[in-house]
């Protein structure tokens, strides 16, 4: 069972099996297309609407990346502040946790009031939904520096800033990348939610529009595109993580 080639093939076998089973269920039980379209019907819709889909996917991708980028910058700074200063931690903790407890969907209508319909609310939603895990993880990485290591550095005359820069930040990198993989997926959720409610472009909007026209295969094509984008970006960050923080896994899973 642990043949490495088989292990590499396994996810693909499962994936193909999943779609084959789906197709089979749709055909055998003659499921109406407006309830659950078969993969072949979804593919047909994808081919038929290829260019519009690409346009909307591009819009969603850009929106997500901008919101995510702001979340990374902001999350990194706030995480470093929270993780390295007891005072900042105590001061911001209740606010941050309370903020995180708010369902971000509920914020979208407010954003529409402020910014109108379009890209801006989607970017902000993507940002709001994805920055929290980055803050928490970076802060954790910084706050868990070994006390003895701090002693070594302080007894060399290192300033707080030097300790953060030489030890805290590198040490927080594995935590940071773990957070990025979660955050990029969340950012997608955020921008698509906002697009479904308040936009005239993006995959979320495309799906709402297709839904209104009872074009269910196109709705599903939108879902598949989202899944694909999500996986692709996740893999990008997983790759960067393996490259940059190989030391955290003791070099065990360096590939090639």
């Amino acid at each position, binding site marked *: 069972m642990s043949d490495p080639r088989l292990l590499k093939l396994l996810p693909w076998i499962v994936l193909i099996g999943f779609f084959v089973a789906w197709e089979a269920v749709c055909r055998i039980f003659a499921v109406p297309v407006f309830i659950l379209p078969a993969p072949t019907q979804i593919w047909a819709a994808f081919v038929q609407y290829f260019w519009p889909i690409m346009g909307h996917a591009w819009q969603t991708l850009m929106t997500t990346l901008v919101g995510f980028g702001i979340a990374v910058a902001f999350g990194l700074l706030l995480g470093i502040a929270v993780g390295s200063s007891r005072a900042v931690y105590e001061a911001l903790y209740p606010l941050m946790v309370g903020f995180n407890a708010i369902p971000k969907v509920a914020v979208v209508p407010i954003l529409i009031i402020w910014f109108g319909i379009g890209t801006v609310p989607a970017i902000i939603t993507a940002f709001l939904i994805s920055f929290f895990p980055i803050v928490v993880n970076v802060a954790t990485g910084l706050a868990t520096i*070994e006390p*003895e*290591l701090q*002693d*070594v*550095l*302080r*007894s*060399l*005359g*290192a300033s707080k800033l*030097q300790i953060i820069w*030489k*030890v805290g930040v*590198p*040490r927080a*990198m594995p935590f940071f990348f773990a957070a990025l993989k979660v955050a990029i997926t969340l950012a997608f959720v955020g921008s698509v939610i906002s697009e479904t409610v308040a936009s005239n472009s993006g995959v979320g909007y495309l799906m709402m529009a297709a839904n209104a026209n009872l074009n269910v295969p196109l709705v599903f094509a939108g879902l598949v595109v989202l899944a694909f984008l999500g996986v692709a970006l996740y893999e990008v960050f997983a790759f960067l993580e393996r490259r940059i*923080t190989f*030391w*955290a896994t*003791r*070099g065990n899973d360096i590939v090639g």
Partner: protein
Amino acid sequence: MAAESGAAPANAFVDIDRVSLRYGARGGDGTLALDGTSIRIEKGEFIAVVGPSGCGKSSLMKLVSGLQRPSAGQVAVAGSVVNGPLKIVGMAFQNATLLPWRTTLDNVLLPLEIVEPHASRYRQNRAQYVEGARALLEQVGLKGFEERYPWQLSGGMQQRSSLCRALIHEPALLMLDEPFAALDAFTREDLWGVLQTLWLAKRPTVILVTHDLREAVYLADTVYVMSARPGRVVSTTRVPFARPRTLDDTFKPEFIEITHHLRDQIAKVRNA
């Protein structure tokens, strides 16, 4: 052989003067870790501190290096009272605390990126510093391992690197808190020799905390025995043997006599 100390030297390099330390002292009922501990260390002297677990040995190190303030008494180093981190100290602990994202060489170089005057000229003189670090690594038997990461080294090799990191900036004061406690007996004895060689080369003042009496006697000029918590010095033993000492020396009768003497002191402390 084991002579109790006479009068302490008048101008000690490290002067720990009736120092007490209470943790969590706000209510007054915190842990009293040290209670009136006095030790005077001459410049270039190698002392060892032994005593039961939890008697405040690590706390004493923190007081001397200025990482902790005493609740009473004072510590003076090189003639001035310590009231902040000292900046001239090299440190090594039981775990090597190397940075896993840096190679062994870069780990050893770390103090030079922080400590003045090296830090401000580090960029221009990097080649020269690297050469120094390589020479030091070679001295402790790590030639060829400079580009390895710490997690690719054995425990003994990590501790060797850690010693190099503690010494690269040629500190006047070296603090070693049970540095060999986690190593197997053979590696540990190897490292005694390594440490002795390094010490003989530059003669820093050394404070070594250890549980191993043979280690204390092999390495130190003076061995201090501390009581159980709250810690204070209960005996001071000079070790008169010439250097370099060898492992064979540790089995000679006069060496064993001192070790036994220390063991008796510790037994007394523990039964007290």
